[in-house]
């Protein structure tokens, strides 16, 4: 069943999945409190929070002006080093203001370790890269990550890193097959419970980018 759906999607060339996303940030000093709260709220309260340590590289393909640039996000786990993950994120659906969360189509692809070479050879260029460290929680299918971002002093060297800011990025996300709308509500409710500590909101990246430029 899953395969059928997938094949259809592949043939149609549309991403079969949508990501619902809320973002926020918290200063380092309060991070422990948040982690503590999350442990209580999420599943597996009995075990220690799962730590992660990833290296993310952002590649983009820019051709002539007639061509729409294309960006992909490549993540490599530094804990399970055989795991590489390529992600393509579609444009955000903003039309609907009533939506509780940011919704965007996405394609998640597990890839083998030759991916960097492959991307370079078909014309992709490395835009920037960073290292993310932090904790992962889940409640049902909701993913919560508390990650600290580090900038890399030397390109490609994941050990020589410095923290980017004095705060942590908090993300609440769910990836579901197209057409499951009630997820947003669940996420909003969950975000409410973290309220005084961290404000999870839908972030308009485009507006941010415009503000920056």
């Amino acid at each position: 069943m899953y395969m059928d759906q997938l094949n259809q999607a592949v043939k149609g060339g549309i991403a079969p999945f949508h990501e619902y996303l809320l973002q926020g940030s918290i200063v380092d000093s309060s991070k422990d409190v948040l982690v503590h709260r999350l442990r209580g709220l999420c599943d597996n309260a009995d075990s220690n929070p799962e730590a992660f340590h990833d290296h993310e590289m952002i590649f983009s393909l820019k051709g002539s002006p007639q061509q729409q640039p294309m960006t992909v996000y490549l993540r490599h786990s530094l804990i399970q080093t055989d795991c590489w993950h390529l992600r393509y994120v579609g444009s955000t659906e903003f039309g609907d203001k009533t939506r509780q969360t940011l919704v965007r189509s996405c394609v998640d692809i597990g890839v083998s370790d030759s991916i960097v070479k492959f991307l370079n050879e078909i014309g992709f260029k490395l835009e920037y890269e960073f290292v993310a460290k932090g904790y992962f929680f889940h409640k049902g299918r909701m993913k919560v990550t508390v990650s600290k971002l580090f900038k890399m002093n030397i390109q490609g060297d994941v050990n020589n890193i410095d923290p980017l800011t004095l705060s942590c990025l908090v993300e609440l996300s769910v990836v579901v097959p197209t057409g499951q709308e009630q997820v947003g509500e669940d996420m909003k409710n969950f975000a409410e419970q973290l309220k005084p500590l961290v404000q999870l909101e839908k972030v308009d990246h485009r507006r941010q980018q415009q503000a920056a430029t």
Partner: protein
Amino acid sequence: MALAGVTVSIEAVHENQIQEVTLDGQEICVPPLSMSECLAKSAQKIDFAEEDGEEKGKTTSEEETEAQEKESSAFQPSLWPWDSVRNKLKAAYTETGVLLDVLNIAKEKKYMVLAHVQQDTNEPKSALQILAKKKAFGLQSISSGLSTAASVLMGGADRLKKSQQEIGNRQQTEFHFELHNLRQNWRLKKVGNSIIGDLSYRSAGSRFWQGGTFEVTKNTMLPSEQVEGTNTHSALEVVIPSELEGSSYVQVEVKHVSESTGLMHATLKLPNSFGKYPADAHWQTKLEVAQNVLFCKELFSQLAREATQLKSSVPHVVVGNQIFTNIFPSVQLSIILCHATGKGDEKSQPRPPKVEHNHVLEHSLHQLLREVHHKTLHLDPPHPVTATFGMTKRRRLAGPSGMSRADLKEMSESETLLEQIIKQARHEVLRVRTMTTIDRLASTIPDPQIMAHWSCLNSSLQSNVKIIITSNGYDGLRLTWQSLDLEIGTDSIKVVTKDRRILMLSFLEKELEDLIRWQVSQHHISLSQNLARLMGWQILSYNGCSGVGEMEDFATASSIQLVAPNNDRMLSIRSGITSGLHVYLKIDSKDSLDPSLTALVDPKWLNLSGTFKEIDMEQIDGRNFAAKLEFIMAMVKQKR
């Protein structure tokens, strides 16, 4: 250094004060004082009686000034040695002043800590004796003041402690304290005015529809009204939904259909004591029992759902609170949910004949459901963290590692609880059958010996047993062993013999029995073969399936012909599975030789004649066949 001139360092004479000179002239020195002792001593030197009212304010006000004061006043006693006597009248007044100061200092910790001085009470005392004449009065006044102050303080502390304890004791029986305890073990929330708790397994991964909410109320009954002897009175009561009251368990039985005719009405009768727990049981037990009821219900409903959905050649039957399924022909597995409400509506039911409840299977059922729960919660965390969540690591890597179709298929397969428990039950039945068969054969067949070696590492679906067939007294001779390895699976037994023959046996005991009996008959032949070789006899022929003689019920008899070293005696041994063991001996006698053949020169031709005669093995001395055969061989040879 040298150019700068000679440096002269000055230090105090290293000399200790002599405390006592003993009769033999030895000097006992006062050990040098440490810094704190020094301070304590100089503090004691202060004649507080000397201080007047003006200074009082200063001492309390500032630490540093006080310290300075101390230093300056430290020498006063020596300057005014006799003044204390003169000021006797003034002393009474000053004393109270000092006490006030001390209390001030003691109360406000920031000025001074009293601990050090108290520790050194012994030492000052000896000093006190020496200085007694000089300033006995002043010091005594200080020490008495201090002790009064200390006792006041201690008294206060004691009272505080006592009151604290009293409060604690009182609270233990109180509602809020209990609630606090409850809160630590169970999920509670407040809705309106009532407190609702949840005893379901949802937070542990269960997806069962039935909720397990309970209400927490205050116990209005006073402890005095309680029946004496029950010291478990608690101020808190829990109200459990009626469908979760009582207690329950899941009964698993494996039985032979032929043995119990009225299968369908083998409804479970509960022992009378079961399902009742005192109405005033502690809330913890109540909740635990209720939780168990809920768990059993979930387990049973899950199994029942699977039973109806599962397609099998013999359909599973779900009747009321019972599930029946055939695991082998005429062997039935029944899973029954027993729920006793414990409401006293129990009719005095006749005790049913004791049916064997399989605790192992019940336990593994519980374990299986808990595993399901665990799996719904404990998903593999994604790495990198953006990766798709909800897949195992293996599944995530399936694409990039190019996993084959077979592996993927294997991974996606999952078994239902019912299937798993049926498998386990099958294995269990099979194992018990094998065990009893081997034991029965081992006890009925005295010669050779059958030994079974059950392996200590078993899984719930597989176990191994090695069967070794030996003859008593000859087990040092490894070649004569007949051994096989049985791997008991879920519905068949795989047999590997020592010479690497693979046999698959079905679930029928008969097959195993036949196999072992056949191996026993084979053992006799191989034993004779090896014995013959060792005794110097020759093996003329060996026939694994001899066609002559009595027909066996199954398989075939085997036979072996042996000839003595001198070629004049011959033994023929025939070992059949059902026909038993027969030994025939041929002794050729020259007299019985055909007279026409006497012309033959070569004596070997003489051996052609003669008839085989059966030896009555019963009459031969020896413990078992091996010993008897050896005896025969030796005897026959010797006669020559």
